[in-house]
């Protein structure tokens, strides 16, 4: 009976997920159709699938170089966000003073600021600091933009780690930082993975910040910027635009599928017994 109900729920959710993805699926198989077929009927399946669009895009765009830019920016960004936010989120959650609540608010309220309203002065400041027009500089900039959400998530999660573990970590005569990296940080793994997934998806596919910071120079452009310029240029050739989009988005989706297995149960639950 329970098995049957689970099956029913599963069928329902698979249908829901397919419904969710329907627009994306339609777009996807249009990438395998020649131009004339896309124009005559967008909804129809390709009569015979062709890789022409992908081959064309690969020839047009310098995919490996763009890919490398994305990789560098995303790696720098995510690592920095995780390091600084895990430390701050943990310490803020464990400290109970008059100021820690205010400080916590200070960290997370920036999430309420629409980026469009400050982007002119963000660019100004980045220029002053020498961070604009540079792949590395863009990576560093994501640290600040990613901290609020990550601190929020860590801050909430640390409460589920029993305080006894802190004490155990520090009793053995190690420094506070060593205790943190050896005991506490591994326990936060589910949240670290969650934040990694969210931030990789965000930074890899981000559009507005790279547009403002690194679009002026061909060598610093990101994959996403190249794809969107495609959408502008080839407005009449959806096949190319779609193929470019698939090439750009695919790596981050693969990353999602691999990483989400690590959001596992019971890491903390089994840490303290009795």
């Amino acid at each position, binding site marked *: 009976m329970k098995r049957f109900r*689970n099956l029913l*729920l*599963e069928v329902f*959710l*698979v249908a*829901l*997920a*397919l419904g*969710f*993805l329907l*627009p994306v699926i339609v*777009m996807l198989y249009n990438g395998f159709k020649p131009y004339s077929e896309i124009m005559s009927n*967008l909804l129809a399946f390709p009569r015979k699938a062709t890789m022409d669009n992908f081959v064309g895009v690969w020839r047009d765009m310098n995919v490996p170089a763009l890919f490398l830019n994305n990789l560098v920016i995303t790696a720098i960004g995510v690592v920095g966000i995780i390091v*600084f936010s895990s*430390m*701050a989120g943990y*310490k*803020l959650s464990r400290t109970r003073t008059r100021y820690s609540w205010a*400080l916590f*608010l*200070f*960290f997370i*309220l*920036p*999430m*309420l*600021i*629409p980026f*469009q*309203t*400050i982007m*002119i*002065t963000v660019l*100004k400041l980045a220029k002053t600091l020498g961070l604009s027009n540079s792949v590395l500089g863009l990576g560093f900039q994501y*640290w600040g*933009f990613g*901290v609020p959400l990550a601190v*929020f*998530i860590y801050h*909430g*999660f640390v*409460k589920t780690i029993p305080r006894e573990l802190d004490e155990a970590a520090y009793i053995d005569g190690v420094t*506070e930082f060593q205790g*943190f990296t050896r005991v506490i940080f591994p326990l936060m793994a*589910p949240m670290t993975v*969650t934040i990694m997934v*969210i931030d990789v998806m965000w930074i890899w*596919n981000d559009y507005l910040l790279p547009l403002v910071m690194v679009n002026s120079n061909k060598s610093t452009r990101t994959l996403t910027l190249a794809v969107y310029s495609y959408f502008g240029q080839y407005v009449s050739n959806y096949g190319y635009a779609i193929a470019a*989009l698939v090439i750009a*988005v695919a790596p981050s*989706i693969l990353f*999602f*599928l691999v990483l*989400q*297995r690590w*959001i*596992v149960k*019971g890491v*903390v*639950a089994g840490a303290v017994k009795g």
Partner: protein
Amino acid sequence: MARKIMRVTRTGGFLAFVFPAFLLVCLAFYIPFLMNAYYAFTDWNGIQRAAKLNGLANFSELLQDTDFFNSVLFTLKFAVGYIALSNAGAILIAVILNRKLRAANAIRAALFIPYILSLVIVGFIWNFILGAGFQSLGELTHLAVFRADWLGDLSLVPWTVISVSVWQSLGFYVLIYHAGLQAIPQEIYEAALLDGAGPSTKFFKITLPMLAPSITSGMFFSLAASIRVYDVIVSLTRGGPGRATSSVTFDIYTEAFSHNRYGYGTAKSLVLLVVVMAFAAVQLRFMKSREVEA
């Protein structure tokens, strides 16, 4: 004396952990925000070199700006619908997926994909579906759903914007609740089972209360997303028909970059932020007070 040293090293430890992130947030948000705030007291148009101070003129104009108040109203409407639907939907889906369904990982990934498609593509897809797609479906099925004018009808268009926004971000909230569910100790459910608790008792008496930290997060993230809603509106309706779907962020952006009134637009964003921050602080206080510590 010893106690004082203790306190100093403890404060030192606190700073070492918190200060780097503090500095980063200042550089990314607060310093640009304060640099920007200056323009709220000028008539800068966003292009010319010099900005002329004009005191509080922008703020007194704001008090009589019905467009702005209508945008606030729309944003509130949007926020209520978006926050309710995305959180309730995500909790439900995350809880079901947590029953170790075989396709769970694939489903979570599928739901997440719309989240990474931005502006141009979302607009492209939905304009197509709501236009040509619905038209051919309407001719095929004769259902009223497909015949309604989802982008033109004043009473429907807010729902269109809300639905597309939920479509785009539901996977994000499912992920948040999925991670939250993993932190609930299995022992509690086992104990409840021994006490003869049914599925609905387990959901309302264990799962929901234990999810409180995640619900706080979900509520806050969706509130923040509602304040910032812009992409979906630009790509779907451009604030229309008329100004029916103009959100505050859209209104501010239009003012600053289309009407070339950067100073006035900044004044709007300043007022918006002060009000919203007050709201958010109250909401968080309330939500946090309902959480339990392990």
